[in-house]
């Protein structure tokens, strides 16, 4: 089967690849781009483990072909933390609040939560639950995930407030 050239911007960097038109975006991200933090749990769009942000919106990368993402901006879990030694507030709170056990669903939930907090920086528990209801977690019972997301929201607004009140360097 012939292949197509695909160019995407992943975690801020331009990446190229070739893939058959039938190749799933999830497989392209994992196998062609080598970003195996995006997990595949069902390949039929229910479990949400493969969730990535496509142009900022959470999508199931197992329900898209890689060719459909040509030209898009993609965020995966590998791009969430600001650098190799620092965790994103969501990651920090997931660890602190025991929001993960086996970690398989975690990347998808982190990205869903990232999108939620962009849309509403102060979500209530019900809204958090609604947002993550498309992500299955078999280990935690969700309780600690909800707490972690709520507290990360608090931490992020504190950080933003601190950044806003800090003297400008330029």
């Amino acid at each position, binding site marked *: 089967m012939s292949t197509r050239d695909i160019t995407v911007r992943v975690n801020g960097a331009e990446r190229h690849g070739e893939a058959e038109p039938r190749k799933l975006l999830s497989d392209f991200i994992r196998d062609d781009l080598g970003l195996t933090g995006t997990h595949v749990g069902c390949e039929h769009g229910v479990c949400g483990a493969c969730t990535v942000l496509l142009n900022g919106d959470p999508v199931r990368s197992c329900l898209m072909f890689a060719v459909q993402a040509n030209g898009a901006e993609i965020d995966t879990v590998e791009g969430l933390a600001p650098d190799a030694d620092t965790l994103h507030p969501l990651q920090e709170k*997931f660890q602190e609040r025991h929001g993960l056990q*086996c*970690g398989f669903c975690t990347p998808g939930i982190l990205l869903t939560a990232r999108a939620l907090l962009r849309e509403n920086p102060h979500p209530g528990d019900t809204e958090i639950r*609604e947002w993550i209801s498309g992500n299955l977690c078999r280990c935690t*019972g969700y309780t600690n995930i*909800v707490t972690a997301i709520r507290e990360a929201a608090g931490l992020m607004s504190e950080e933003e407030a601190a950044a806003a009140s800090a003297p400008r360097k330029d």
Partner: protein
Amino acid sequence: MPYIGSSVKRIEDVPLLRGIGKYVGDIRRPGMVHAAVLRSTRAHARLAAIDASAALKLPGVVGVLTAADMPGLKTIPMRTGQIDGLERSQQTPIATDRVRYVGEPVAVLVARDRYVAEDALELVEVTYEELPVVTDAHAAMGPDAPRLHDAVPRNVPADFEVERGDVKRALAECDLVIEETFETQRHGAVPLETRGLVAEFDETNGMLTVWGPTKMTHTNWRILSELSGIPQSAIHFIEPAVGGGFGGRGEFYPEDFLIPFAAKHFRQPVCWIEDRSENLKALNQSREQTYRMRLGLRKDGTVLAMDAEILFDMGGYTRTHGGVPIVASSAMLRGPLRIENYHCHAYCVLTNKTPVGTYRSPGRYEANFVRERLLDMAAHRLGLDPAELRRRNMIRPEEMPYDHGKTPYHYTIYDSGDLPGQLEAALDHMGYEELQQRCTDARAEGRAMGVGIGCFVETSGIGPWEYARVEVGNNGGVVLYCGINSVGQGIATALSQIVADEMCVSIDDVRVVHGDTAKVPYGNGSNASRSTVMGGSAAVGACRKVKDKLLRLASAELEIDAGDLELADGRISAKGAPERSLDFAALARLALPGPALAQGFTPGISEEDFFATDKRPFPYGVHVVLVEVDRETGMIEILDYLVMEDVGRKINPMIVEGQMAGGLAQGIGGALLEEFAYDEDGQPQSTSFMDYLMPTAMDVPQGQFISTEDFPSPHNPLGVKGAGEGGITAAGAALANAVSNALGVEITRLPLKPGYLLELVDAKDKP
């Protein structure tokens, strides 16, 4: 401050949160090709012919394997749960002449990538000669039922009895005998990561390396050797990050033979990652049991006798667990109750469905549902409060250790605890009487609100032994090599806490190695809530030997009697003269072969220990739940849920309560949603997540989780009881009791799907 008892952050988390954890599907080997398993589409048939010629012509296909390519196939043995007779229904890794369930491996396709492998699957032509199918355990025992295995009459490969006292006489003396049949539905572990293996054969040294085995890595290592004829010394198993276990994942499955075989056969690294549709047909299923019960009581509520007949639907074959679930059910059906007269006849029954194995709290989840339901039914009939009936029959603290009498295949001497005390604490915490009043008031307004109790005794920490080696490395760091496995539960963190405390070092200076057969020679793995109990206890033993060695090395170097030295903060120091001390790195240098041999020491600081026991701890606790049921739709809303469990001693309270919360979610799934359904032809109806419904964040309440450590286990040096299963074990029981209470009906089967509840309501409302 000691690490034990503290909710330290998990050392597993950071790589997993950054997306750099390496699960089996993330492993890449040079030249790696991909396998797909062709599975039977028939529930019972003779394999007349397999024609793969068209598949072999497809570009990118490496080859096809069938049973014909594997002469001398042996059946996969039971690693546990052996009951005489079960060995007659074991499974070969690939079907030879007959298939007995939909999903049974028939051929293995290997190709350039998974896409091509799946294309090729569709080109293989299998000719089946259909045989009559039986999917119901009761029907399978009938005289005219099709026989699955020629050597197994009535499709019952094994049955056994448990007997204590004189049930017949006791039942005759009872004021009330409740007779009822209960059913629990087939569901299972279904971890979010499907199974997978990467196998590579190195022709230069004859080594077969396999990434992916988990849970029972060392047991599976031995089984592969026995089935393949390759010595264990030429097989290297490596456990990667694992996306959940819950009993289902990590047993020795057909693919655990087929994928290494393919790698050796084709001389190329082979990757196989199960897809979800395969997973829902091929992973061990569990929980399908039917109970015919008689419970006899005096008017005052004293339970005098329990008589049980249990049918255990095993599917098409006996797998590695043998009869573990039915053994556990028959032994633990009495739970927290003192029952002097008990009889149970347990039958293992084969049907044309996916074979079964364990799922978190195997056999106990089912048994708790049955017993706790019977207690509520008895309470209703006797006009007693359900809590009061339990109080009158629970084993009291002064009766501990409590011996349930001789039980075949299971240890049943409860070690310690205050069962009624835990019940009172749970009822107090929830405000049981106010809850009941609230339910009564709500029902008076036409709202179906109910409260349910589920009491349980769990069993954990199974032996017979576990292995640990502790070494002090050249930088002074401490490494634990242990025979347990990690399936995502946080065991490396818990063991690090134990080792750090025992060795008086920072947890940052401890590393845990597990699941690698080149680095750890022995192990019994992670199951039955045993990892902390057995692995932790073995680690303590090895640490103590290492400390002794450190003291002897320091004593020789400092010329101070070992009795005048002490260990603190990663150093050995003279008591009262801390300036005379040696840190672990200095001691490691003294243990190098040159200086050590000169001083008459065996080189190195490395000590092994085995912790062996034939006893088991018994964690125990209570579930209390408040529900409201919509009488029109049959939908259940969980308003509040408490799980309270005594775990003997908490190594990491955060992890303990995380286990309880996760267990509860699975328990709710099993009680309300999850079911592996089959049609009468044995075709599975739950092969996607659209049909097999796992609980989402909208189905699981916030919940309250209270772990206590009032009664440490006397059976291990840590006092721990294992904490993996208390959250799930009484969920079916408590929810069924709450829903029965809400609707004024008597539930006798799980799951509590709307249709079933509406049937019960309709039957009750009919004049």
